[in-house]
């Protein structure tokens, strides 16, 4: 029989090494598996600046190996990306997301990233309200899309008929609408940011005083009797992505909230971060940010505003969103 001996130093060290995984177990169990590639998409407009800034400042470093931001150029490109699975997280027009959801596409709205970025720009001092547009020539981009639908609702509210009370020139793009206005071929242009800012900057250089004469958000609030907000776009996420990485959503939302505050506090830096991803000039983005009404409200918080907007803009049959408001499952 061997006599009992006290443990030597080597035995103690080996014992400590053996215990280390056990001691670290709670931390290991808590840690989420990191996402390989966190790929955001968005339109080349204000809310995408927030995501591009968040990516550039490593807001998602704790949850993803790599994060990226890219821009889609047309709604068709967005739809193709969503249906093919190439796009999983994207800033999407709320109406488009609601329509996809109501038609059975697995997509949910995580938040609202702008409370509206539509303006009627003009160089005419006598245009200041919707009724002032009677008898005028107006450029409208994206025929049949959200801006025109909202505009049509406002005209109807003020007793104007787009077909008879004014001459509407449909432009192929916001930039074309801006060019029509600058060339003096129309008296006003309904446009989204940053195209409106581009018109203001270009007008200043050419001796024209182009200004945001009608804030569509304020006009909308006046019409609905509610807050002057148009929750136009937010981050939408596909069902597949949520199934795999849904636990990371609170951290993503927190990152976006912080990034939004930073973008509003320092538009120039944020614009520098976003210029490459969005292929838009930094000075244009920087000048546009204060007019983009950037926010980071969860979809649930914004639901009342979203439903008010969808109800008003889709009419009685709500055909644009497949006949009904999205149910609870739409809002994350």
């Amino acid at each position, binding site marked *: 029989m061997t006599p009992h001996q006290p443990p030597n130093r080597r035995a103690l060290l080996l014992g400590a090494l053996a215990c280390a995984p056990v001691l670290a177990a709670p931390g290991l169990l808590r840690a989420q598996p990191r996402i390989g590639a966190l790929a955001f998409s968005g339109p080349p407009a204000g809310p995408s600046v927030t995501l591009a800034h968040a990516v550039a400042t490593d807001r998602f470093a704790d949850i993803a190996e790599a994060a990226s931001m890219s821009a889609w150029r047309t709604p068709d490109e967005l739809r193709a990306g969503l249906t093919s699975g190439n796009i999983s997280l994207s800033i999407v027009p709320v109406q488009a997301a609601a329509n996809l959801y109501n038609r059975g596409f697995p997509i949910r709205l995580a938040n609202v990233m702008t409370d509206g970025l539509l303006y009627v720009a003009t160089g005419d001092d006598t245009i200041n309200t919707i009724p002032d547009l009677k008898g005028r020539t107006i450029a409208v981009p994206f025929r049949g899309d959200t801006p025109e639908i909202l505009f049509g609702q406002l005209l109807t509210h003020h007793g104007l008929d787009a077909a008879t009370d004014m001459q509407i020139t449909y432009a192929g793009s916001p930039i074309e609408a801006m060019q029509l206005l600058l060339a003096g071929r129309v008296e006003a242009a309904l446009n989204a940011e940053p195209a409106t800012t581009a018109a203001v900057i*270009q007008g200043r*250089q*050419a001796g*024209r005083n182009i200004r945001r004469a009608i804030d569509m958000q304020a006009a909308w609030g006046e019409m609905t009797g509610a807050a002057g907000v148009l929750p136009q776009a937010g981050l939408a996420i596909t069902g597949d992505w949520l199934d795999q990485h849904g636990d990371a959503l609170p951290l993503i939302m927190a990152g976006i909230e912080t990034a939004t505050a930073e973008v509003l506090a320092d538009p120039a830096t944020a614009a520098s971060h976003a210029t490459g991803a969005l292929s838009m*000039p*930094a*000075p*244009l983005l920087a000048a546009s940010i204060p007019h983009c009404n950037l926010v980071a409200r969860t979809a649930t918080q914004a639901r009342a505003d979203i439903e008010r907007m969808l109800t008003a803009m889709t009419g009685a049959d709500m055909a644009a969103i497949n006949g009904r408001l999205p149910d609870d499952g739409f809002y994350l």
Partner: protein
Amino acid sequence: MSRTTTTSGKQSRGTRLVLHLLVLVVLLVAAIVQATFAGGLWPFDLRFSVLIALGGIAVLAIAWWPAVLALGLFAVFLPRARLRLVFWPVAVLAMTALHGAFGPGLGFVPLDTLGVWGAVALYAIPTALPILGGSALREAFFRPTAPVERSSP
């Protein structure tokens, strides 16, 4: 004893055209600098500043095209480079007066809002360009004016 100097035909046609090209470059650079600082186009993006500068010139040229054409043609028929140079500030003042009279009707800011110096800044480069173009055409396609002889004791 007398000394004869010439005020025209002293440099070759090629040299004069290169000088015109240099002036064009200077004018375009000045337009870009003006657009950047007056428009507050920061953070600086050269392509955007160029776009805004050229866009501004284009908007003015389209709105005032008869005047722009007239300036260019007038410059073609001014025989001496010095006269074309003197014509520039006169043309800027003329454009300022035109702006005051017809600008608001064409959608431009009224002169009393823009200010005379604002108008001068607005039209200085867009007015110089057609004059420069006319001057270059004259140098390229017209025979140099006969030398002016000056006698000095």
